[in-house]
């Protein structure tokens, strides 16, 4: 059985706490941590011809920006923690993509921060944390 822990990371404070918590857990079970950053993307969103033309360049841009601003600092920060840390960037519906990733990695648990989504919007559309808690097939830890 693998000891992989997947942690969703978007750089805000609760995500940072979730990551710190994940690294602590990984130490205990001598596991590894996969830091996942998901960019919201729907293949059904409508684009103008100009946007279609620029899409590939923009995607490259978004990927390198996320890598430089979010994931590289994480790797540096936890380089000395003794826990193997890998990073991954995905496009898609956030909770669906996290579940797919966690399943593919054979993770033992998924750790996410409780993001500060507004009360109204999370009531209307559901929050990522709430959706994951209800639908994820592996244990989910929500870090406040």
């Amino acid at each position: 059985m693998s000891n992989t822990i997947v942690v969703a990371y978007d750089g805000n404070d609760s995500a940072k706490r979730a990551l710190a918590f994940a690294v602590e857990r990984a130490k205990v079970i001598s596991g590894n941590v996969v830091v996942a950053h998901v960019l919201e993307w729907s293949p059904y969103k409508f684009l103008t011809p100009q946007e279609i033309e620029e899409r590939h360049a923009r995607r490259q841009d978004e990927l390198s920006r996320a890598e430089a601003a979010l994931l590289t600092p994480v790797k540096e920060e936890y380089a000395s923690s003794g826990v193997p840390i890998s990073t991954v960037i995905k496009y898609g519906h956030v909770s669906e993509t996290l579940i797919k990733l966690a399943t593919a990695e054979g993770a033992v648990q998924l750790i996410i921060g409780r993001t500060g989504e507004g009360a109204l919007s999370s009531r209307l559309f559901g929050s990522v944390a709430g959706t994951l808690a209800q639908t994820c097939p592996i244990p989910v830890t929500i870090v406040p």
Partner: protein
Amino acid sequence: MKRIALTTAASAAATAAFAAPALAQSLDESINAAFASSTGWFVNLIFSPFPGTSFPWIVGWLVVAATIFTVYFGLIQFRAFPHSIGLVKGDYSDPNDAGEVSHFQALATALSGTVGLGNIAGVAVAVSIGGAGATFWMILAGLMGMASKFTECTLAVKYRNELADGTVSGGPMYYMTKGFKERGLPGGKILAVLFAVFTILGSLGGGNMFQANQAHAQLTNVFGDFPGVITGVIFAAIVFAVIVGGLKSIASVTEKVVPIMGVLYVLTALVILGMNANMIGWAFGQIIDGAFTGMGVAGGVAGALIQGFKRAAFSNEAGVGSAAIAHAAVRTKEPITEGFVSLLEPFIDTVVICTMTALVIIITGQLITDPATGNYVLNEAGSAIQTVDGNSGVALTSAAFSSAFGWFSYILAIAVILFAFSTMISWSYYGLKAWTFLFGESKGSALTFKVIFCLFVIIGAAASLGPVIDFSDAAIFAMAVVNIIALYLLMPIVKKELNSYLSRLKSGEIRKYQ
């Protein structure tokens, strides 16, 4: 294509709608005079009928090409149809490519450039002149046109230019130059330049002035008469904000609302058909009868056939090469997959949406028949069928839908304006690609075209420029003349791609994800 030009009804409506200020009219008159004398020969050449008939040779040119592609690729539009649906659903998309443009997005964007006035007003013109039977020929032409789209869009992706910054430029002008070179054929550059010139003219005319013109006509219908300059300046400002200012919000609102309008239109039509379910069999009977007997329309069977073919060609633009420019920008490993996806466009545009319009007009009894003979009653001139309130064009469609739902005329007015706007955005892109092909990919050259484009929005809305619009229509069809010559010469390349792809699909090398 969102255009009902070349119909006297449309130009008459447009003329009536433009009681523009005196200044605009004098400007208008001088432009008209200058244009008519210098371009009349070109318009006549493109739209001249076959000797002894009223069948424009350009329509024959498009239909013959569609037939040849259909035969050459072995009824590809039917064989590949399920696979096309699979591609659009994303069954064959690598999840690791998420974040790139999906096939669905490519199709939706290309459709927003073709679905519009042609589907609403053009069809009304077709059935009011050619009777129910025109619908049969329109559907047939739509089905054939799928093969033309398939051919041009595959080539456009295969021979596009990828720039250093990751953006792409493609379209017929690129397959004309690169494809001809690869096959050792002469004249590619000349065809490409001709195509680019016609595309620029078409984009400023049919893709811009005519749209602004019709949008203003609709606005005056709703709000009463007011100067077109006002509509023009507002439209130009919005178009400017989108294409020059890069204001995403307006574009994305339109791009969201346009498909909703399209879906709402089809759903309303389906509800009306459902309410008259017992008459659907009768309506199809009329369509088949009319297609082979003419049911007394002007020109008989040939009259119905010409109207049907013409409207299908004008509506779905298959063979014109415009959609090829839109599809070329999509990143895909296999060029042919864009071809498969694009063949759904004439299907959705013509076979589904145009047919809905026609069925609603027929079922709601807008066309008056003589109970004694079962034939249509013609108007006094004998040129068109008498309709309930003497309507034609948008008004006929509006009357047909409103007979079931009174509020629908308002929805239709909004739809026409939004469709006009989305067509402008699409054609500004087609024109821009042709412009940068001729004058280079620099920022300055692109900006020059965009500013010219916005100025033409104002001109289009402010004045009734009959000859200018005739000319730009001719330019769009001239695109088809040049494009189809290139398609004939390059179709063996598409065949090779097709065979290779189909054999890999069969062997399981190309398979579904998930």
